[in-house]
């Protein structure tokens, strides 16, 4: 890997990452571990989690939990905090992308996207900002998307989910600021992950990215920055990292 110009030091810090088995969540978990953090990596798929843990066994703890299983998430978090100490932040990267075109709209799929991306994100923040689980000043990042800003055919429910993340986090930022907690939203352009691969075969979308289609590591730097103390005066904001897609 090319030596980075900007590096972070999260030694002794603890974070929880959802959606850690693939894409953005996996990349963030790796980079946090590389920067010395202790990470609780949560996802449904255990084999992928085990592979990730094998890369940094001393820094990554894994738990095979569905983020919509609220009790399961809190149980895993409680065990992690008991063993490693209180959290310094969270990253909610869990999400799915399903096409919901009007001609073949499926409410169940639409609600599932909302459950995983939005409601589970709210639950995560509710749990991780509890005094028993977090230090006094924490930073949290949730994922929105450029689709909250610009429409694409077939993505009405996905876009609404991502719009909800932005609106919701602005309110929560106000609720938790007094207690020293921050929350921000990152809106990536279309990044080549398992989740978006099908969409990215659409040539128009690829061409609309002035800098080409992104990779998870093109976005993770912003996330690590927001988690760090260099971002201590930043909360309730949205950060677009999109290779020029919205330009």
């Amino acid at each position, binding site marked *: 890997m090319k030596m980075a110009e900007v590096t972070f030091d999260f030694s002794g810090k603890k974070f929880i990452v959802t959606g850690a088995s693939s894409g953005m969540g996996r990349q963030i978990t790796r980079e946090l571990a590389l920067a010395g953090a202790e990470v609780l990596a949560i996802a449904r798929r255990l084999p992928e989690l085990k592979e990730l843990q094998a890369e940094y066994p001393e820094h990554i703890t894994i738990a095979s939990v569905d983020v919509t299983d609220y009790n399961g998430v809190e149980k895993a978090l409680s065990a992690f905090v008991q063993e490693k100490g209180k959290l310094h932040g969270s990253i909610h990267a869990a999400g799915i992308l*399903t*096409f919901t075109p009007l*001609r*073949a*709209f*499926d409410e169940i*799929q639409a609600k599932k996207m909302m459950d995983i991306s939005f409601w589970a994100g709210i639950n995560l923040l509710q749990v991780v900002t509890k005094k028993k689980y977090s230090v006094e000043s924490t930073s949290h990042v949730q994922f929105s998307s450029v689709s909250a800003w610009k429409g694409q055919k077939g993505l009405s429910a996905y876009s609404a989910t991502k719009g909800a993340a932005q609106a919701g986090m602005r309110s929560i930022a106000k609720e938790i600021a007094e207690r020293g907690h921050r929350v921000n939203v990152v809106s990536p352009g279309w990044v080549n992950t398992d989740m978006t691969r*099908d969409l990215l*075969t659409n040539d128009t979308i690829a061409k609309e990215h002035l800098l080409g289609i992104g990779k998870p590591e093109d976005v993770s730097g912003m996330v690590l920055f927001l988690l760090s103390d260099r971002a201590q005066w930043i909360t309730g904001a949205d950060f677009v990292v999109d290779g020029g897609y919205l330009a």
Partner: protein
Amino acid sequence: MEKFLQDLIDMLDSETHITMNSYLSDIEEWDSLSVISFVAMADINYGKKLVATDIRKAQTVQNLYNFIAGE
């Protein structure tokens, strides 16, 4: 097969006479959105996880049916 044809016609909201041998290029309503809609419809009605890239290669209605039938 009849159910599949009816599902396809409903999804396309088409008044064209469509048979298994119809060429997609002859169906006015078959456009880029149809590909995405077909992927969604296959999942909802048939529990089939299809990939848009593959669907774009289909030339006939029979080709589409083969994706659903898993052939």
